[in-house]
């Protein structure tokens, strides 16, 4: 028996519910030891319209069961992305979504306008939740009106799938989720990193040059599962769970909690084979329970 692991996320058919998270695979061109058969899709590193240098080092700190990062969305800008990476993506057998960033609503729209129709670009993940940039990012993610405005601006420029990536740093993720759904998002990605800080006790100042960073890894998993679940309860569009997935059990927790798929980031730094192991582990779990397909996995999603 082979289990049917495919899933359709708002019309986009994925062969696996395990996706590569933005920022953990670069542009997919130098991913070591990746077993591509297991990959449902990839979200590219966050891009702006123009090239960005990113933050000065140190950019990374290890924390208990997690890490803080403050990369600052270093990237080559949209022209280089279209020239250097999209053509490679066009030949791959899984979809690549571009993680979209802007300092203003119109910049988000313009960026998607530039990328819409470029071969290799299968859809967009709108990042309104990056904690590591001075302008944009989080600002759009924690205000329902701003979040909706960005989503609308993007929606007008493309018929490709638009996924919106939510921040956990809000009082009620359901409010943002509904605002974004109302503005035309095809799916939600929950969640981006949590803002954190670590202090250097020699220098008596933050370890990261950007002062704060985004916390990722297993430390945040219980929080991310809760938030993805809350988002899924708030909307009718699919939710993709993100945060601390390291093995099949972790992924299954998100899926049971109401997610259609998961993204894996930090875990791949530690185990470059994580994606394949997660894929195979989910399949084995389904088989053990005599389920023929991922669609048959029981979900826990009370709508009260």
């Amino acid at each position, binding site marked *: 028996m082979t289990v049917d692991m495919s899933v359709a996320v708002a019309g986009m058919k994925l062969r696996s519910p395990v996706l590569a998270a933005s920022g953990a695979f*670069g542009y997919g061109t130098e991913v070591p030891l990746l077993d591509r058969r297991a990959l449902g899709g990839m979200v590219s590193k966050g891009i702006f319209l123009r090239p960005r240098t990113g933050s000065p080092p140190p950019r990374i700190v290890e924390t208990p069961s997690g890490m803080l990062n403050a990369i600052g969305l270093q990237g080559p800008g949209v022209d280089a992305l279209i020239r250097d990476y999209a053509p490679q993506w066009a030949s791959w057998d899984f979809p690549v979504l571009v993680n979209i960033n802007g300092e203003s609503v119109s910049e988000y729209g313009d960026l998607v306008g530039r990328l819409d129709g470029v071969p290799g670009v299968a859809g967009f993940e709108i990042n309104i939740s990056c904690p590591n940039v001075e302008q944009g990012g989080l600002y759009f993610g924690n205000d329902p009106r701003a979040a909706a405005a960005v989503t609308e601006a993007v929606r007008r420029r493309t018929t490709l799938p638009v996924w919106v990536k939510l921040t956990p740093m809000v009082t009620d993720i359901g409010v943002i989720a509904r605002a974004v759904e109302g503005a035309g998002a095809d799916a939600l990605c929950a969640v981006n990193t949590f803002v954190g800080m670590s202090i250097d006790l020699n220098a008596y100042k933050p370890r990261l040059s950007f002062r704060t960073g985004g916390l990722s890894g297993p430390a945040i998993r219980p929080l991310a599962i809760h938030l993805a679940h809350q988002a899924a309860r708030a909307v009718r569009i699919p939710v993709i769970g993100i945060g601390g997935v390291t093995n099949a059990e972790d992924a299954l927790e998100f899926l049971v909690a109401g997610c259609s798929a998961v993204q894996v980031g930090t875990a791949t730094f530690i185990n470059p084979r994580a994606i394949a192991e997660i894929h195979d582990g989910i399949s084995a779990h389904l088989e053990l329970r005599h389920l023929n397909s991922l669609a048959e996995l029981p979900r826990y999603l009370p709508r009260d």
Partner: protein
Amino acid sequence: MFLLNARITAMREVARGMAVISIAAPEIAAIVRAGQFVNLGWAGVFLRRPFSVYRADGERIEVVLKAVGRGTSQLLAMGPGDVISCLGPLGHGFDLEAGSRTAVLISGGLGVAPMPLAAKEASALGMRVTWVHGARSIDELCSESAGDEVIWATDDGSRGIAGTAISAAPDGDVVLACGPNRMLAAVADRWPEALVAVETYMGCGTGVCLGCAVPLTRGGYDRACKEGPVYRAADIDWAALPSHLSYAVTV
């Protein structure tokens, strides 16, 4: 690049608190170049820890380390038979070209790490190798060396020349250096063309996370794990490179 569950086969002390660990990793040993590193992982740490490859023979690679924190302490507490996860070889090592006659290797403290392999490659290209070993005192000086000539330098004069490895070093056609980032900045002043191996924090070690940013004089950042860790000394914006990392401060 290989991901191996590799067995520790031996461990020996080479200075006070400084040990060399041998790891059975034939695939990596077969192809690793001087200046490249491996990213080691085990149950007690969250992120992997990068270590230069110190030596390599047919079957085994070696790394040299001191306890500077939680991870390195755990690693030193392991012993033959223990298995660790070994990802590598990673990074871009020393690019040595045939034609140079003399190579000067300058190491400060744990900066000995990439030098035995570098000495071997330079010798194989026909260069005469002088290795200048610096440390705070004789106890902290790695007892192993390689090359045609070895010069010792200690801050307190307890062995060899009293002073820094840099002040003790002769000129050469190629200069290779590894040690605290502060020392490498001084190397850059005297030998802008020197090839230096820098230390940064690392997330992935494989070029995807952009965590290991190395600030460049021409602006922007390179990835220490991919374009580096070896750089032309003059290419690095030393003032912007953190100099407080542990490997870096342990002279």
